[in-house]
């Protein structure tokens, strides 16, 4: 699969015009999960713009984004970085056998206080 195809696919899924980014970095400045991420929100936008998709697809950063949408709220250009992250995540988990969360993983991470809703959301987000 070539990068051009992936790039177009991500732009299509996210509906984001990545070339609107003016490199101000407010998305990364605002991101609460910044320290957890290998690639930060502004890098997602940038790398998608440059067609560097593979590193993103293989990065754990995809699952560190909380989808809090603070970056979307504060981006002065309306780029919506969280949607780019979401689109890359979808591209990653849609591949065969790439579900990030399997039913077998759950007993190990669950405890009495984990709300049901969280599991449902996680499944929705991390599996095909």
């Amino acid at each position, binding site marked *: 699969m070539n990068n051009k195809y992936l790039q177009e696919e991500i732009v299509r899924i996210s509906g984001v015009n990545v070339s*609107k980014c*003016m*490199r*101000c*970095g*407010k*998305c*990364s*400045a*605002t*991101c609460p999960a*910044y*320290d957890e991420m290998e690639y*930060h929100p*502004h*890098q997602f936008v940038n790398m998608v713009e440059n067609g560097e998709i593979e590193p993103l697809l293989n990065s754990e950063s995809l699952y560190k984004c909380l989808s809090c949408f*603070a970056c979307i709220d*504060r*981006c*002065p*250009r*309306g*780029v919506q970085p969280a949607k780019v992250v979401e689109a890359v995540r979808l591209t990653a988990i849609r591949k065969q056998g790439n579900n990030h969360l399997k039913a077998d993983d759950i007993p190990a991470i669950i405890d009495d206080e984990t709300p049901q809703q969280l599991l449902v959301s996680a499944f929705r987000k991390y599996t095909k």
Partner: protein
Amino acid sequence: MQRVGVFVCWCGSNIAGTVDVKAVAEALKSEPGVVFSTDYQYMCSQAGQDMIKNAVKEHNLTGIVVCSCSPRMHEATFRKTAAAAGLNPYMVEIANIREQCSWVHKDMLSGTEKAIILGKAAVAKVNLNAPLTPGESPVTKRALVIGGGIAGIQTALDIADAGFPVDIVEKKPTIGGKMAQLDKTFPTLDCAACILTPKMVDVAQNDKIRIFSYSEVTDVQGFVGNFDVTIKKNARYVKEDICTGCGACVDKCPMKRIPNEFNLGMDNRPAIYIPFAQAVPKVATIDPNACNMLKNGKCGLCAKVCTAGAIDYTQKDEYIEEKYGAIVVATGFNPISMDKFDEFAYSQSKDVITSLEFERLTNAAGPSAGKLLRPSDGEHPHTIVFVQCVGSRCESCAEKGKEYCSKICCMYTAKHAMLTRDKYPDTEVYVFYIDVRTPGKNFDEFYRRAVEEYGVKYVKGMVGKITPEGKKLKVQASDLLANKQLHIDADLVVLAAAIEPDKSARPLATMLTASMDTNDFFTEAHPKLRPVESPTAGVFLSGACQGPKDIPETVSQAGAAASKVIGLLAKDKLTGNPCVAGSNELICNGCSSCANVCPYGAISYEDKEFRMPDRTTKVRRIAVVNPAVCQGCGACTVTCPSGAMDLKGFANLQIMAEVDAICK
């Protein structure tokens, strides 16, 4: 029927080389109305012009067609020739057979054919020409400047210098504008007051300049050279001509806790106040919303202490009507409101301030007497974070920010950072930037000095979140070059707020029928070649009302606007362009379509009595074009649904005749 003479020019071999001029002259002889047709080597030469003049007399010509070079070249020449021969200059039409025929076509046959067709079109048009006389209107030799900031001050001084009377209308109690609030000016670090206040005094002392302070323009009628303006002088409850500005009333006033606008609410003033020490006019003003005497009739202390007897609680708003020949708009700018930028905690913490507030804080005449102290607890801040582009270049947030670059922030932030490090070397200063834009003389050097000599820490990135925590402001930001997220405990945060045109600009533009862009900046007549004129004749633009500007640019634009005004006022009469629109009142149904498309506001409506076929009279609304304002674009003629509107010199029938002649 016209008696048309056709004159075909050879232009040496320029035309004759590709066009058989004799054949053209011969072919046009048989066109309707043509009574004389000839050719000559150089029509524009004295001999050629004499030939035209003689032919007019000899053949009693009423119209002239010259087949020659472009009308942009010699239309004026041949119009003068016609006038010299006693003909109306607008009875001349040019067929462009050089630039648009002989020079672009190589083939004699097709070139001649086309020249004949172009000649026929010109003959067809001139047959429908009517003599036109440009309208003349007198010029009132007085200018109005709206806004008393540095732009208005400079414009007024320059106009007055040329000997024309000028009135300045300023809505605040004093002139001076934003510049009076500034501390130092970049890139030379002159103190703003030191260079501005002498100019303010010049204005006050100039006998050609009248200042209407605490006043607004409420109505504008008329057109270039002849504006009728109504100025509302708000009641300041102090007799301006008697008050000496001694300030005794200000000291005695018991209502001392009114937020001081001049210091952006960072300290208080009394109900009767003089905005600042060098105010012009230096006259006290009573704030009617705060004064106990005006609200409840109890107090009257200021009147008791005023030895001059200047206080007048019964003063009323006064309306002044005055005639002007030219109007200069210099309404300036304001920083945008920071209330909607929740992430910067502006409304949560007193220690998050805007750059203009910072100017007041560092100004020796400011609320802290020039000492940089935190507004919340009066302590000296040790870590200061400057955030650039707050609300500027903000495309997605139209409801809170602006899409454009505010232009001045990069430089004043560099200035603030530099001055802070200079005065307080123990403070750490961070500047968060997206881009540093410093085009301008000595601008980039200035910014580099801030970094290299004064050790200001410039960080490429944006602040994402500011959280007040105890006495500190937790600043979360990104450093894009280091690819890090920064967490800084700041004592003071300064936001470089975007600037926007003053709120009074839009209603004013409506009054002036001057056009504005979507950001409420006034539009210039031409973005490159007529930058200080509004498309509306007689209205000129000065300063930040036209777009974000720093002081040097504002002053040069103010001078340019003044020179345009002087050029206008120096004329005794204005000669208009006779090719203007006109409405046929019998056909017009008063629908307003034409007025909506007119970019100049040249069209108004009046009710006129018409005699109907059944001998009754009926009042109908009809469009009336002011020929002094109309520029003759013709937008209205096409938009008119009833076909009542037509353009003189380019009438529907004339252009239609040209089309017919070409398509024959």
